[in-house]
């Protein structure tokens, strides 16, 4: 993306926003144990997640992914790791809790993570192909070749 384009700064602004948003959410939980009060079955679901320690895991993951996104270190990996949580928040807020404010914050979460994924996924585009040979992660250096997707180890 050219830094002459307005998109360049808009995407970076959104990256800082989403990163700070995740960092605050995760660090607030780590520091204070704050869990939002959610009415109805959505609240029961969140409580069930806390009972099996999934909620806590997600909060600490938010600190990690928030730092990755905010400080622009492994940004695309951070966005991918955060996406399952984003889908959960989107679904819960939009279709389950569905109070007026949650009808905003649910889609907002998906908008932020989704737009950032679109903005960074150009890097993945070359390898998202219908046919792809397996390539172990530790052989990743071999991926940098003109015929991307076909294993360099295959004869």
């Amino acid at each position, binding site marked *: 993306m050219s830094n002459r384009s*307005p998109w360049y*700064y*808009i995407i970076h602004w959104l990256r800082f926003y989403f990163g*700070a948003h995740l960092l*605050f959410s995760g660090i607030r939980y780590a520091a204070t144990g704050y869990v939002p009060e959610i009415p109805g079955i959505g609240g029961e679901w969140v409580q069930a997640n806390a009972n099996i320690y999934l909620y806590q895991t997600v909060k600490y993951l938010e600190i990690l992914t928030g730092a990755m996104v905010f400080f622009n270190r492994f940004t695309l990996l951070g966005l991918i790791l955060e996406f399952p949580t984003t889908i959960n928040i989107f679904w819960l807020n939009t279709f389950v809790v569905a109070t007026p404010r949650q009808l905003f*914050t649910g889609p907002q979460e998906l908008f932020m993570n989704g737009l950032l994924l679109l903005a960074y996924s150009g890097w993945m585009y070359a390898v998202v192909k219908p046919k792809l040979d397996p390539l172990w992660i530790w052989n990743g250096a071999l991926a940098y070749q003109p015929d991307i997707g076909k294993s360099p180890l295959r004869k």
Partner: protein
Amino acid sequence: MDKNKWIAIVVCLVLTAAAYIGSTGLFYTDFRPIRNYDLIAFAGSWGGLIYMLIRDRKKKDD
């Protein structure tokens, strides 16, 4: 500061206003004062953008 940077700033202001309205419920539901959660995100995003604009101030665009 060229025209495209100003366009980016205006778009970010619109996004900030949208996030403010969405969080507080202004115009559409019971008003709730802005939370620290939102203020930290605003501070992070604007601080980061201003940092980048200062960093790129003298850089020739490519």
